[in-house]
């Protein structure tokens, strides 16, 4: 009886329909037997609902680990950007002996040069001291003018000691050796071959693999406590 009932139960709906418990007839499940609907695919893993606190903790740990790794990277020495002016081309280093001028400066001329250097030093010192004295004179002169202005009119004096916003940023174009040629067009075409450099750390690959392979694993006891 039960088997026949089962069969009738099965033929009630087409086979491709998934059956839930609600579809199974109550009369059939006298013995507590029932069928589940045909499943079209393999049963999937049930997702365990995470504890929200635990989830948060895991995220925090991730962020901490990443910030630590970033700090470590920043502490590591960067490969310095090559400066063309400082780098000596290697072929010149090899050819140094070949390219030696072999000049020998006689003793008298060396002495002359040293004395000239001292003269120059004295000249520069005097020039700089003179300039400083000129600055002092200007400041004194301005102070005198402001004092006189104060006796004449305190209001004008107040206006004069205000900050002048048009003065800064101060621009002055210096003199040149020869004046610019009118309508001179710089000759020659050029290709811009400046090299672009990105920040690079030494042995980046090794460093990253090291980071990935050894994340610090805390013992279970510690996780429970925190």
């Amino acid at each position, binding site marked *: 009886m039960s088997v026949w009932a089962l069969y009738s139960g099965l033929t009630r709906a087409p086979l491709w329909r998934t059956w839930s418990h609600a579809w199974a007839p109550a009369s059939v499940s006298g013995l507590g037997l029932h069928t589940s609907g045909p499943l079209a695919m393999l049963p999937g893993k049930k997702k365990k609902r995470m504890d929200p606190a635990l989830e948060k903790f895991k995220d925090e740990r991730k962020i901490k680990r990443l910030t630590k790794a970033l700090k470590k990277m920043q502490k590591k020495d960067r490969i310095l950007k090559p400066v063309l002016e400082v780098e000596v081309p290697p072929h*010149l280093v090899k050819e*140094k002996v*070949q*390219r*030696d*001028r072999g*000049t020998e*400066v006689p003793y008298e001329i060396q002495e002359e*040069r040293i004395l*000239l*250097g001292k*003269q*120059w030093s004295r*000249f520069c010192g005097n*020039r700089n001291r*003179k*300039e400083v004295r*000129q600055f002092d*004179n*200007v400041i*004194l*002169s*301005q102070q*005198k*003018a*402001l004092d*006189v*202005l104060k*006796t*004449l*009119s305190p209001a*004008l004096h107040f*206006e*004069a*000691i*205000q*900050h*002048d916003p*048009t*003065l800064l940023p101060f621009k*002055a174009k210096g*003199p*040149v*050796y*020869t*004046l*610019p*040629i009118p309508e*001179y067009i710089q000759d020659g075409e050029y290709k811009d071959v400046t090299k672009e450099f990105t920040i690079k750390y030494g042995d980046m690959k090794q460093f990253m693999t090291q980071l990935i392979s050894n994340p610090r694993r805390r013992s279970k006891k510690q996780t429970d406590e925190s």
Partner: protein
Amino acid sequence: QTAKSSATPTPAELWDIAVSVCVERHPRVTPPLAELPKTFLTCLRQQEIEQSLLNDHELAIQREARAKSAVDASLQKREAGLKTTLDLEDDWQKEMAQFPLPPRDPEARGTPHEPAPTLTRPVVLMVRHLRGATPVWTLPMAQRLAGETLRQTAERAVLDNVGSRLQVQILGLAPWAVYNNRYSKTMQGHCGKMGSKMFIYKAHYLEGQVEIQNEAIEDYQWALREELQGHLLSDERNALANILYDEEP
């Protein structure tokens, strides 16, 4: 305003306030070097050559000199279409000769109205106007009007005397120097003041042309230091000496 009981009048009652502007035009070309800097520079350049290594061109010259028969080698090169070092040097000399290098002419003065572009010394703007009956050369000046700050008077001094096309940058709100300009007896009696306190402002010439629209101004000139000092009164000269920088190195 109630009269003060004290007998001595205040400075404001004795003196007028006037402002003059020292517009300085800087040289566009560097001045020639003095003796010591020149000798030191040649010495440095000599040392630089001595301490350097031979460059590729000089190595090529050496190689050509060392060749077994230098003349044949150079002939071969020329036949092959290559240039010898002498050829290269000739080419460079020609290129240099053809380059339109502008002249450096420190002696050129130009006119008082338009200083030469190759002038290597700074010049200061002066105007000619009547002081009483006599025409004198002075810095552009103006009497302060009521309600003006000193800086505004300075700007007006430039504008009224030499026109709006001249662009100057007056340096700061505070005056740079002051001197007394006593009036003549007749003038004192006329206006009741001893004279005027002349405040000097310093300005940098930026660009533009002088355009005299004021009938009181007869003429203008861009004066060198000696010419400037020659025209001025002793008080003004002393005041200016403090704020104009010394041209001697």
